[in-house]
């Protein structure tokens, strides 16, 4: 638990943006906070869960999480919801209608954009939702602002009767800066106020609310023109003035300490008149925003001449090393050659852990890949696309493994005729959006073999609990879904649900072969826990008997990071064919003793460490 949970008001702490938002949510008197884990937003709810006096809970997906928060708002309680950028794609159905109804208690949604893609399938600019949903966007530039703006966001939500989006990015969520905290002010739920004209969104109601929504946007624009969340900073060098928001503000200030800057904390709706006046005072104007040119386009449309993405990249972070040469170029100054970002060293991509229960699955799938199309999903098992397995053909979004596999199976042509279709999904992702896909598969009589890898955790985001792990966000016992029964309930035949131990190579391989050969949908369910969660226990480690190792290198195809090469040789066979050989060792301290790699070793050279003496 972070010490800040018990920190007294007016004390200062080094907090990440996520920790700062958590503290502010508690102080704002929020009653219910929900989320589905997603980098870089995950730690917000993890930290909220440490605070007393409010309820924090993991939801099965972002749409569910937002709807639960909306329900709390409707009965007059302050409610909060956090998600990563792609989470809002899932939750947007609820958002786009609720913005029309408005809120009861303040409703704040923190959306964390993964600018720079440290752990995401795309790079999205969530500020679009403000334009799309006619609702305010607040953009903090550091942890102190994340803390303050979260509290302000609840006030704005209640003042304008609107959900408010707190737009974070990785450089807010995961940067630690000093924050002065305050104290919690209790805010009891004000009670449900029955008004079908607001809460029951049928066409007649919604039609009446549309003009109200536009009027609200007008009132928010007036607010934007006067709020202290939008700040103009003077500068002595007025050749270029900068309009910026979020973490880009810090990069601008670092790069151009003497320039005038207009910093937007309340960035939608834009205070166009204040910005017009600012632009008139400086030589050139550069809009520095991550990532899309949203403010830039609106300013250009308003007839305010600005630069932006004509000189700056439309992708990734706008750090000083990006900003300085671009602005120098605009001013016609000499641009020095930039030092390279990194030296040429081998890549070190993320990979599966030592003893991970996904390793055997991909060891098998890589051997069957020539006869199969493999449709992947979002989670640690997406790493199966990497070396040495190279055993994923597609990955798009949460739950799409099963549904895309169905489409492949139904529409594949002559070229893929002999290939069976396999989908790979994890437990948390299956509960997030996979169940619907499996129901659709059985209903439409598709033929897909689903590898359902249940490791009792939302692994990639750090092992969070979920509806299938048997524990809630506090680690307390919770109802646990029975995956086999659930699959049966949505229409998979009982005999086509095969529960196997992932570490038993012959059984696992044989089961995949059998199920992919059968012309009906099936589920292969593995249940071995993630090696990073508390309930995982190591077994005695393994070791390679050097004299027995023949250098066949088959164990390297497991992809376990504990297996290292000690020497290599090229052997020329009688037929003249060259074979690369590699002798290995196992890092005993790291080995979990999962006992999988010995099953890939022909000469039985891999043995428990304790047995070495007797073998030798």
């Amino acid at each position, binding site marked *: 638990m972070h010490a800040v949970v018990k920190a007294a008001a007016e004390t200062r702490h080094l907090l990440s943006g996520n920790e700062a938002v958590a503290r502010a949510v508690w102080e704002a008197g929020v009653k219910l906070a929900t989320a589905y884990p997603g980098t870089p937003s995950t730690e917000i709810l993890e930290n909220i869960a440490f605070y007393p006096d409010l309820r924090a809970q993991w939801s099965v997906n972002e749409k569910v999480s937002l709807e639960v928060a909306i329900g709390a708002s409707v009965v007059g309680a302050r409610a909060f919801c956090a998600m990563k950028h792609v989470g809002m794609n899932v939750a947007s159905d609820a958002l786009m209608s609720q913005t029309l109804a408005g809120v009861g208690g303040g409703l704040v949604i923190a959306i964390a954009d993964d600018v720079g893609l440290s752990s995401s399938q795309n790079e999205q600019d969530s500020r679009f939702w403000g334009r799309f949903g006619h609702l305010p966007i607040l953009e903090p530039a550091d942890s102190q602002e994340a803390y303050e703006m979260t509290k302000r966001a609840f006030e704005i939500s209640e003042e304008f009767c609107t959900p408010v989006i707190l737009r974070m990015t990785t450089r807010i969520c995961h*940067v630690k800066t000093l924050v002065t905290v305050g104290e919690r002010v209790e805010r009891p739920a004000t009670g449900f106020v029955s008004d079908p004209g607001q809460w029951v969104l049928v066409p007649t109601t919604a039609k009446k609310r549309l003009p109200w929504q536009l009027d609200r946007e007008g009132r928010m624009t007036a607010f934007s023109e006067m709020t202290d969340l939008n700040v103009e900073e003077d500068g002595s060098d007025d050749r270029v003035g900068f309009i910026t928001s979020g973490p880009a503000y810090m990069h601008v200030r*670092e790069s151009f300490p003497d320039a005038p800057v207009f910093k937007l904390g309340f960035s939608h709706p834009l205070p166009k008149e204040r910005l017009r006046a600012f632009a008139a005072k400086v030589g050139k104007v550069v809009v520095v925003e991550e990532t899309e040119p949203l403010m830039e386009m609106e300013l250009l449309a308003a007839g305010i001449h600005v630069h932006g993405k004509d000189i700056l990249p439309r992708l990734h972070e706008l750090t000083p*090393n990006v900003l300085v040469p671009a602005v120098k170029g605009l001013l016609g100054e000499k641009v020095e050659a930039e030092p390279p*970002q990194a*030296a040429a060293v081998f890549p070190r*991509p993320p990979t599966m852990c030592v003893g991970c229960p996904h390793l055997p699955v991909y060891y098998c799938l890589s051997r069957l890949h020539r006869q199969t199309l493999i449709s992947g999903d979002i989670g640690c098992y997406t790493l199966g696309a990497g*070396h040495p397995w190279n055993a994923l053909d597609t990955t798009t979004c949460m739950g799409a493994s099963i549904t895309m596999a169905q489409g492949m199976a139904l529409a594949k042509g002559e070229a893929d005729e002999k290939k069976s279709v396999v989908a790979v999904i994890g437990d948390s992702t299956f509960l997030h959006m996979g169940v619907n896909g499996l129901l659709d598969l059985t209903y439409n009589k598709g033929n897909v073999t689903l590898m359902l890898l249940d490791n009792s955790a939302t692994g990639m985001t750090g092992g969070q609990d979920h509806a299938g792990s048997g524990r809630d966000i506090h680690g307390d016992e919770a109802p646990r879904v029975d995956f086999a029964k659930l699959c049966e309930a949505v229409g998979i035949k009982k005999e086509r649900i095969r529960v196997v131990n992932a570490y038993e190579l012959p059984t696992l391989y044989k089961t995949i072969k059998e199920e992919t050969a059968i012309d009906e949908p099936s589920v292969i369910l593995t249940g071995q826990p993630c090696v990073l969660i508390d309930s995982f226990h190591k077994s005695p480690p393994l070791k390679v008997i050097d004299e027995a190792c023949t250098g066949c290198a088959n164990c390297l195809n497991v992809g376990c990071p504990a297996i290292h090469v000690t020497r290599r040789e090229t052997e020329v066979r009688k037929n003249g064919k060259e074979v690369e050989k590699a002798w290995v060792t196992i890092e005993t301290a790291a080995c979990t003793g999962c006992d999988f790699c010995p099953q890939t070793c022909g000469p039985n050279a891999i043995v428990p460490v304790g047995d070495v003496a007797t073998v030798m």
Partner: protein
Amino acid sequence: MSKEPETTNILVVGIGGQGVMTASEILSQAAISLGLDVKKTEVAGMAQRGGVVTSHVRFGTRVLSPVIAPGDADIIVGFEPAEALRWVTHLKPGGVAMVNVNRLVPPVVSLGLFDYPDDPIAEMRKAGIEVFDFDAGAIARELGDLRMVNTIMMGAIADRLPFPAETLKEIIVERFRAKKEELAELNAKAFEAGRQATASVGNTQKSTETAA
């Protein structure tokens, strides 16, 4: 262009699970205890899965951007030699690198798809970097606890920081005292061992060729 001149930039680099983020947290706490402004950031999205972790620590009277630009780092703290080499272009002229020589070889190298550099420390020196190399793993084994590597690393850089080594030591010892008294003592020992390891090595130390 100019920036707050007294900002100190420390880049801590390594691999997920090595303690890079804990190290930068400790450095930040030390700077805060001296009344400085601090920003700390890392790119570590999937770092727990054996990927590269880089943590940027910046402190001074007022820190703006949390990111250390290439060519702006005063010190690189390398938990692994190839990782130190990877980020060496982030050092400013005259910057130093403190590097643990324990190699961590990733699966892509084991598979023969890429080569591990023959001698990363020598390559860094060839680029004109002042490198202090030491075997934190060996020191940790001597102390009887492999988890001491992090504290040894902190000791190793303690005399190159713009504040007294004792400040850093105190932060670390107090951090462990909160957990267990014995851990406080062991970490104090590890800190001093790291300090001595780099006090006695020059820039012409032997390379990492023999490091396991």
